[in-house]
């Protein structure tokens, strides 16, 4: 038993350490400094091992803390409950039921299980018992401090708080034992990554009960919650016996893992199929243009599902929203003043909105998956003048696609400003409209430039560039931060316009200088 524990720990650790080293290697600059033989460097390995150990300990508690803060206590504090202890237990019990069948550990087809039981032929029963026991222990230990802190703070009695860790563990054990028995009797396999329709309905129903019922004042009485918890602990105790005597772990895992591993290997094929699905099969789509314009027109028209259609949908939603607010002005005139204030100080917020409705990422992804991925293998396609010509055409197209919703939002904001009482400085109308348009152009230029300069995919359509991901995350982060900024619309608008202009000019210069060299398969 101890040997199995040791081996499975070592295995998991090696896997984790190598993952840490691998992710370190993905960081640009750092990767140039590190040798290929990185996985053999002793010092680094020790460092990664320490990280791995720290992570193991932190993960025991951190996840539970976040879970309690976000899902239970935090959520509970949103209701004005008379009896917070009752509400706390109500949410906890219902969420624990969800967790008992959707987060089982035992039926999670993870890679380390595949390596240990299938590839390395470890004894399946021993491996499972040791690791499952450890996982359940981690659950109980991890829940203890948070239950005490948040349970007592939330107004639950001490004995109930002490019971929580055993309740969570007990219910998980009971569910696992039930699934094992089900397998013995019917041959049905439980796989938590392949929940069926009923499970999803159950999850939704339980979530609705956990968060919806308290809103209308219905909660499980404390006695029912406590009773259920005690019952679960008892069932858990019985379940331990079932889990120990179950002797078909090997054949069960063979089936669970074989299925999932096949799926994992196919992730790439699947993402390619997904990309190909967006290609319109309409044979009526043709083009009378020539050369690259011909290629481009066919591309845009065969991908209208993710380009024009979705941009039109967004535009329609925006039109409805704007008319909705105008109607609200008419019905509730007090709103006007509020909205007027918002319009003159919340322009930074719209950076994030323009970011989220931009079609740029979808466009570049489709460009690569369905077009460049194959054409880049032909030498004619890589001729510098062709690369630049096509860049111009594509830039024009993606700007056009994004411009429709932008124009509607820009004009809508200006109209709302006027309808909500107007402004002393008429320049505000213009700046509002133009800055929204420029934001849209900025994102279009940004995505396409980054795509041309960093060309993040390899021939197997895997994303290979860490830099690309960092740039995209940074974009998101900046847009997100800007939501926190409040600035007079005039000032921010003018700044946005100037920045976008400068960025577009800089981007185009960079493209002309570098793209013929950078726009290659990796």
């Amino acid at each position, binding site marked *: 038993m101890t040997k199995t524990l040791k081996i499975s720990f070592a295995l998991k650790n090696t896997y984790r350490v190598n993952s840490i080293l691998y992710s370190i290697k993905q960081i640009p600059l750092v990767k140039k400094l590190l040798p290929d033989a990185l996985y053999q460097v002793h010092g680094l390995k020790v460092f990664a091992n320490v990280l791995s150990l720290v992570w193991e300990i932190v993960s025991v508690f951190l996840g539970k803390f976040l879970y309690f803060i976000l899902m239970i206590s935090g959520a509970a504090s949103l209701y004005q409950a008379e009896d917070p202890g009752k509400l706390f237990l109500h949410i906890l019990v219902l969420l624990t039921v969800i967790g008992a069948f959707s987060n089982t550990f035992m039926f999670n087809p993870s890679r380390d299980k595949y390596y240990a039981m299938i590839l390395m032929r470890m004894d399946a029963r021993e491996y499972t018992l040791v690791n499952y026991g450890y996982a359940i222990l981690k659950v109980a230990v991890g829940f203890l401090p948070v239950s005490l802190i948040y349970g007592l703070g939330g107004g639950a009695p001490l004995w109930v708080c002490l019971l929580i860790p055993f309740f969570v563990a007990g219910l998980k054990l009971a569910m696992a034992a039930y699934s094992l028995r089900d397998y013995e009797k019917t041959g049905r396999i439980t796989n938590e990554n392949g929940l069926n329709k009923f499970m999803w309905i159950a999850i939704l129903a339980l979530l609705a009960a956990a968060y919806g019922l308290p809103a209308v004042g219905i909660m499980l009485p404390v006695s029912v919650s406590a009773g259920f918890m005690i019952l679960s602990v008892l069932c858990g105790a019985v379940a331990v016996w079932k889990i120990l005597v179950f002797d078909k772990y090997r054949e069960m895992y063979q089936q669970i893992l074989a299925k999932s591993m096949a799926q994992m290997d196919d992730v790439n094929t699947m993402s390619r199929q997904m990309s190909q699905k967006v290609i319109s099969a309409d044979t009526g789509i043709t083009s009378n243009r020539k050369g690259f314009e011909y290629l481009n027109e066919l591309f845009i028209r065969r991908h209208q599902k993710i380009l024009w259609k979705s941009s039109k949908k967004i535009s329609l939603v925006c039109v409805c929203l704007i008319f909705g607010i105008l109607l609200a002005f008419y019905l509730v005139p007090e709103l006007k003043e509020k909205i007027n204030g918002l319009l003159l100080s919340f322009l930074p917020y719209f950076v994030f909105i323009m970011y989220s409705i931009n079609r740029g990422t979808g466009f570049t992804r489709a460009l690569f998956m369905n077009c460049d991925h194959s054409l880049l293998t032909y030498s*004619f396609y890589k001729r510098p003048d062709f690369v630049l010509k096509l860049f111009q055409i594509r830039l024009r197209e993606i700007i056009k696609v994004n411009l429709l919703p932008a124009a509607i939002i820009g004009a809508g904001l200006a109209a709302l400003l006027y309808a909500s009482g107007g402004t002393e400085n008429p320049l505000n109308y213009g700046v509002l409209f133009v800055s929204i348009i420029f934001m849209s152009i900025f994102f279009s230029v940004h995505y396409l430039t980054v795509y041309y300069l960093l060309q993040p995919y390899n021939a197997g359509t895997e994303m290979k560039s860490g830099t690309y991901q960092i740039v995209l995350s940074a974009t998101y982060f900046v847009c997100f931060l800007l939501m926190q900024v409040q600035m007079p619309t005039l000032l921010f608008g003018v700044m946005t316009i100037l920045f976008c202009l400068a960025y577009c000019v800089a981007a185009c210069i960079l493209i002309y200088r570098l793209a013929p060299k950078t726009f290659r*398969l990796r």
Partner: protein
Amino acid sequence: MKFIIEHLSKNFEKKEVLRDIDFTFESGKIYGLLGRNGAGKTTLFNCLNRDMKTDGGRFYMEDGGLPREVAAEDIGYVLSTPTVPEFLTGREFLRFFLDINEKSIQDPRPLDEYFDYMSIEPEDRNKLLKDYSHGMKNKMQMLINIIARPSVLLLDEPLTSLDVVVAEEMKQLLRSLKNGRITIFSTHIMDLALDLCDEIVLLNHGVLEVVDRADLDSSEFKDKIIAALREESHD
């Protein structure tokens, strides 16, 4: 016409994949490039197609004794897994290709003539390429690569996954194309190499060398190649 590689080298960090490639290819011949797994055949092709930067050395064309740079359109590269733009039909892809290369393609033919030449059935010509079978995609890729009449045609394991009929068609095609150009053909299948190629070149330890056939018969020649590959990998 000659295609000359001088002292070409390529490292991946410390691993020398191509050490010192020094070779002259002559037009009119099909060269069979043999090497063990991981010997660097695809790396060599990627370097020659400029998908990858080399670390040293150079390669150039020699026309009538005069050296000149290799232009992008000199090289045709057919990958082992055919890649074609999925959102176009076969006919559209061909039309696009002819459009943008109209200056460099002498005597363009009607589209259907090209399809006939590759024996791509009329009903398939207007289908989206994403719905083409593996063999048809391969034919399409080959067609695009030969219309432009590249001086050097690189083929990376092109026949391995084709059914016997298509493979035979392709072999005939390659034979008919070999005049006036250099064809370099990488493969793991010895019989195919012996059947199709005029010269057998080994890539081993980052170096290219020709195996002299002299007057050996087929099976002696095979033994010699195997021995060369085996021996060199153990020194």
